[in-house]
């Protein structure tokens, strides 16, 4: 069965050119739209495998229409067509969740290649998913052992579905790169206090000192794990944010757009929760 494609472009001329190119290439053009409203309506009626999207349109632009289509169906696969090719357009497309890009005027071979890539399984992402948690576990284990002189064993690997109940001190690190993600470290204040005491070789002077130690530890674990992943696969280009912390709390935590895989690190001071998740938002630029 032919791959179904919908074309969003305000110019009837451009739509005709793209439609003819696609039809000649053996694709089935199932719908055309020239605005946000018609794009949503046509998408829901025709359920295309791919949407080609013009950036410059008179009312809602291609990014806005793409956001609406992805809100309507997060699995929508959109290929942006634009005469512009600059870093900011690329980043914006990635942030929106657009899957690929072709430069205008659209060349048939380029377009077919991007369609093929967008529809084929993303092995780099699959590898990141399968290695991600283990790499963060390795970074945690190495650094806790080195800094806090305790052995670490992991007692549970699972996906978190329901809200996770914080044990008291939560550190969140954001990750960007070819894919974006989150690392969460959570432990009780008592466990944090014991680790701080070992690292400082004296009791912490105040709660702030304990929190600063947890923040630094999370920063090191996140940074080292991403470096390890980047070393194995340069294309990942992962970078981490400084940590934000939530503490003194009775809080639950959820990650609505990313599946978080968790592991519990058992140390002689108590348990440390480690959660890691990645999200696809890659753009194939050609």
């Amino acid at each position, binding site marked *: 069965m032919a791959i179904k494609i919908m074309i969003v472009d305000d110019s009837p001329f451009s739509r005709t050119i793209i439609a003819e190119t696609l039809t000649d290439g053996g694709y089935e053009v199932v719908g055309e739209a020239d605005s946000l409203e018609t794009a949503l309506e046509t998408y829901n009626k025709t359920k295309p495998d791919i949407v080609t999207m013009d950036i410059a349109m008179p009312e809602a632009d291609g990014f*806005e229409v793409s*956001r609406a289509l992805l*809100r309507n169906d997060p699995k929508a696969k959109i290929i942006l067509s634009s005469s512009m090719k600059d*870093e*900011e357009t690329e*980043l*914006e497309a*990635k*942030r*929106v969740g657009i899957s690929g890009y072709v430069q205008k005027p659209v060349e048939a071979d380029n377009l077919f290649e991007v369609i093929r890539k967008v529809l084929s399984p993303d092995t780099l992402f699959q590898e990141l998913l399968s290695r991600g948690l283990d790499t963060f576990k390795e970074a945690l284990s190495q650094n806790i052992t080195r800094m806090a002189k305790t052995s670490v064993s992991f007692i549970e690997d699972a996906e978190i579905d329901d*809200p996770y109940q*914080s044990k008291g001190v*939560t550190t*969140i*690190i*954001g*990750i*960007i790169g070819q894919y*974006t*993600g*989150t690392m*969460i470290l959570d432990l009780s204040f008592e466990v944090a206090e014991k680790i701080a005491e070992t690292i400082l070789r004296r009791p912490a002077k105040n709660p702030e000192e304990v*929190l600063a130690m947890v*923040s630094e530890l999370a920063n090191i674990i996140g940074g080292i794990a991403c470096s390890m992943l980047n070393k194995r696969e340069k294309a990942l280009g992962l*970078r*981490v*944010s*400084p*940590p*934000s*912390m*939530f*503490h*003194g*709390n*009775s*809080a*639950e*935590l*959820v*990650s*609505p*757009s*990313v599946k978080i895989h968790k592991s519990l690190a058992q140390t002689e001071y108590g348990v440390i929760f480690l959660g890691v*998740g990645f*999200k696809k938002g890659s753009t194939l630029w050609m």
Partner: protein
Amino acid sequence: MDVNIINPILSAFTEILPQIGFQQIEKKKIALVGSTFDYDGILLNIAMIGSIKGVILIGMSIDDAKSFASKMMMGMEVAEFDKLAQSAISEMGNMVCANACTQFSKIDVGGLDISPPTLMMGQGQATLPVPQAIIIDFTCDNIDVKIYVGLA
């Protein structure tokens, strides 16, 4: 922290909210606070990384978060702050912060990207990775929303 850093975030918030069903977006107050502050309700955490780095938090009381999600879902009743409501608020944060990156690029602060949102629900204290954070108080169709900016 340079207080002007919040301008792209203000623009993003006032540009995105009308797109998701809000009519009146009023900026009430801007305050500079230390890196640690109390929260009670929900706090959405989104990291921003590039030529500036840090985090943007969006906070509301649980009741306001339910009203906010209901408004985003065209008035659908939201009795519990459930998965659907959590997803709606996260999506709003994602859109605002992604748009803020675009606004930053217009003033030559480029190369920014954002992490996926993480949502904290409950109460306690938050500490941002900056010496001082900026809190912006908004009222959006009678719903109180706080934006905490910790970027440097």
